[in-house]
């Protein structure tokens, strides 16, 4: 059974804090918090590292063709991306 959205959000937030302790650790990470290029301001390399961390955390495999930038718009869009892969 897939974890609830709140649980996915909590675990994604923990991954982000591990990845970028300064940028992501300062304030609350909410669904609307920006990721790629704004908000926390991750770049494409960090987006890919987030994917690698999520693959490990959730036991996922994300193929190259699914790595659209839109999935990294906000924390919420990335949580949705993870949920869909889990579902």
């Amino acid at each position, binding site marked *: 059974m897939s974890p609830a959205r709140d649980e996915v959000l909590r675990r994604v937030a923990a991954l982000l804090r591990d990845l970028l302790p*300064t940028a992501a650790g300062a304030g609350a990470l909410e669904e609307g918090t920006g990721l790629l290029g704004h908000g926390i301001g991750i*770049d494409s*390399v960090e*987006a*890919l*590292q987030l994917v690698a961390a999520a693959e490990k955390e959730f036991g996922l495999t994300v193929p190259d063709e699914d*790595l*659209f930038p839109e999935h990294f718009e906000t924390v919420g869009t990335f949580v949705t991306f993870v949920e869909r892969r889990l579902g």
Partner: protein
Amino acid sequence: MSTMPPSAPATAAGAGAPRTDPGLSVSDVSELIAISVLAPISWLLPQRLWGLAGDALAFAIAALRPDVTRRRMKRLREALGPGPSGRALFALRVRIMSAYMEERLQILRGYRPGGWRPHLRLTGREQLDAALARGHGALLMVSPFSHADLVSKMALREAGLAVSHLSTYSRGFSPNSCHVWRPTRFGMNVLSRLRTRIEDRYLGDRIVVPRSGQLGYLRQMEQRLRDNGIVSFRAGDRGHRAIPVRLFGGRLEFASGAPNLALSSGAALLPVFVVRLGSNAFEVVVEPPLEPAAGLERHAAVDDVLGRYAALLESYIRRHPNQWSGWYRLEMEPRAAEGEAAG
């Protein structure tokens, strides 16, 4: 050590052009006209006369477009201050445009039997060898100078190195088309391939950031670096996070991705500059690796690396102002620009 494989496939740069993009634009037609003028020159005129031909064409265009020329000269004045005369700024404007013309001539000559064969000198090969000896690959940050796109690839190939080159999907034949042109299917699928087909002769392979922006290309880059390979890219602002750096009292943005990849992968980030030595002679300089000050967190380290790169870049531009292709992307701050204009 990475060496050139006997025959390596190259990916088409225009791959992935979606049907939602327009088929053709006015810029494409202009570029076709330019190619029809430049192709006979490139094939028939001796190479030693290309500079004169480029100057003549650039002078004519500058004179026929006085509004654009005024804007370009104003930007050069803002950046360089009150020192250069108006005549010197006009000459610089013409030389920058002339270099664009010559770059196209070099590519078009590549299609003639025998191709284009400049004299090349690679300086700083030891930087590359030292990077590869550490076993984490090398990222070559090719600075946006005229001739750099093709000449850097030719020199590295001549040195026996197999380089993977990262590029965005290309929009046209012009060296700066990715900055100013709206993408069209014709530009991506036809015009850009006129350029990349010649460049690809000198590459191990080409890694393309697709039109859709999918990030899979980064996995390819990581794999090349894990294999202790060499990945080149053109230093520029096309990326998801752009970092402003100080240059000539103004600012220019550079994408954070490649420096960040170097930091996270352990690859050496080596700036590369292409300098013209004579009408048909070029030096490709590989500078020592850019490394951040110790103890900085990741984003601060990327900022620090790009700041160091900007200082190096400015020193090259001051020595070779007519070879830098980024003058018109430089953003001058209003206060500085007004002060200099007043002077």
